[in-house]
């Protein structure tokens, strides 16, 4: 991390995420070993790697879905290694899932509304919100941001795959996030939907940093300022998109040698 990081705005030098020697073993299998990486506040980072490289495991450990076997995680300077998931979320961390994790029998509006309420003290409220409720308005803005405003009353189970992916994004954008983990947000999307996704990601407020796992290199290299390359549970390379794309070792492992 010696070279300066290209951020568009709000680069105060503070780190959003600092992983130090993070490891995870499943029995004899080391899913992750000694992962050390730092992401600045507002930075957009892509994590690349073949299947089984440990990318999603890394996300699960950052959000607290899986406990660490070794190492520590700091979020905006605070050690969150032992925090339960909801405590990490309440500090501004969000994630999306590779396979949509949604609420099938709720409407789109209710889902986004809950996502906004999840980080407020009123998540236990027994009182229905009034039509001019601030959280409802916030939910409306987020639905517009992911172009779901026309489907607000639809049940989640009735949405198309592409719309469910948009809702995945909406749930991660709700409630003033500071840092988001996108797990293959383009999975299964049409070329048109992919263009929309890139538009949504590049239009995010500059203070929101993210890590994106993406197999579509065109998307990953376009929306990221830096790229981390993983292989067999370890970090292989880190650099700018141009450096990673032209690296012969990366091409050998990830792109099958003859890409581009």
């Amino acid at each position, binding site marked *: 991390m010696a070279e300066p990081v290209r951020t568009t705005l709000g680069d105060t030098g503070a780190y959003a995420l600092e992983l130090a020697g993070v490891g995870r073993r499943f029995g004899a299998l080391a899913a992750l070993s000694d992962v050390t990486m730092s992401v600045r506040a507002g930075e957009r980072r892509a994590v690349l790697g073949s299947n089984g490289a440990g990318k999603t495991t890394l996300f699960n450990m950052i*959000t607290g*879905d899986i406990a660490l076997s070794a190492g520590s995680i700091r979020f905006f300077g605070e050690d969150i290694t032992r925090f*339960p*998931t*909801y405590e990490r*979320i*309440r500090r501004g961390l*969000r*994630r999306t*899932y590779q396979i949509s*994790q*949604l*609420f*099938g*029998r*709720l*409407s789109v*509006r*209710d*889902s986004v*509304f*809950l*996502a906004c*309420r*999840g*980080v407020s003290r*009123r*998540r*236990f*409220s*027994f*009182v*229905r*919100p009034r*039509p001019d409720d601030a959280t409802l308005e916030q939910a409306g803005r987020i639905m517009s941001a992911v172009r779901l405003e026309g489907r607000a*009353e*639809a*049940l989640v189970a009735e949405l198309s795959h592409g719309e469910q992916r948009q809702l995945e994004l909406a*749930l991660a954008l*709700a*409630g003033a996030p500071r840092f988001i983990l996108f797990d293959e947000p383009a999975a299964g999307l049409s070329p048109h939907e992919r263009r929309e996704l890139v538009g949504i990601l590049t239009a995010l407020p500059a203070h929101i940093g993210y890590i994106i796992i993406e197999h579509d290199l065109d998307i990953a290299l376009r929306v990221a300022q830096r790229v981390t390359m993983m292989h067999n549970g370890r970090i292989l390379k880190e650099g700018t998109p141009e450096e990673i794309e032209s690296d012969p070792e990366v091409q050998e492992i990830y792109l099958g040698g003859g890409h581009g």
Partner: protein
Amino acid sequence: MSTLDPAAAAPARPWSIAGSPLTWAALALLLVYPFVASPFFIYQVGGYALVLGIIALSLMFLAGYGGMVSLSQMSAAGLAGYMVAILGSNSVGTGFDWPWWVVVPMAVLVGALFSTGTGLLAVRTAGIYTIMITLAIGMALFLLTQQNYAIFNGHSGFAGIAAPVVLGVDWHQPVPFYYLALFVAAACYAAVLYVARAPFGLALQAIRDNPRRMHALGFHVLAHRVAAYAFAGVIAGLGGVLLVWFNGRISPGTIGVDRMIDILVIAIVGGIRHPAGAFLGAIFFVILETFAIDIVGAERFNTMIGMLFLVVVVFSPDGLLGLWGKARRSLQRQELPNN
């Protein structure tokens, strides 16, 4: 949520509070019922069905919105009933003789605390394991009441418990009791419908659909589930107070395993996806229980209710409400070409 078809009602007007014409028609029917029915039908059928419906509603809230099938809601109700006997007056003479306006809140509170405690033990489990652990808790309370004489008076329990006379009305009489039960039932029904669309209820349904994602949205899933048990416990407690006033007595048999399963049967047969199902199932159950004796004899009642349970579950997993929904959709399909 205003009509009887949950699937169709949910997305239509999500923030409305007013009831549908069908809800108001059902309420009107229930209000005039005592004017046309005999005292037996008012009390033994109408009043009893409302009381069982309230207890089943407590289970419906947990199972339908929370995905947690708790067999011990009958136990929470029964414990509240025991509190009415112990803190109030009974014919054994061991009651504290406290006035009803102290006894009732205390009884409901104890029922709610019992339900909350059940929740604390059960919320880490799912599916069949929730059923097993709540069955075990219910059995533990049953055995405690049967073997403890100091507090629960053992096998024989308590008798001589009557609804109080308030405002010059003897609430133990058929018509007053019916209206009291109807009032409490309507209040609980409205409360459940209201909370289902409030943030708490929405979050509970979302936890039912995907607890992992709710964690990742900042919700403390287990705390939310325990709170749902507490809310359901208040409803069960109210049902338990009415149940002991209805029967005039309470004993371990009131909270035995067969009674626990009765509540589950009522909720499932009626339809677990909407609060109306609890009351529909209770009416169905009470009518069968009352008249099966004349048709097949008392010993065959359980065989009959078991077979009907199978028929309903096989042909309509959403219970009687599901049948209603199916009928309405097929009617709408037939009407379409004429429009």
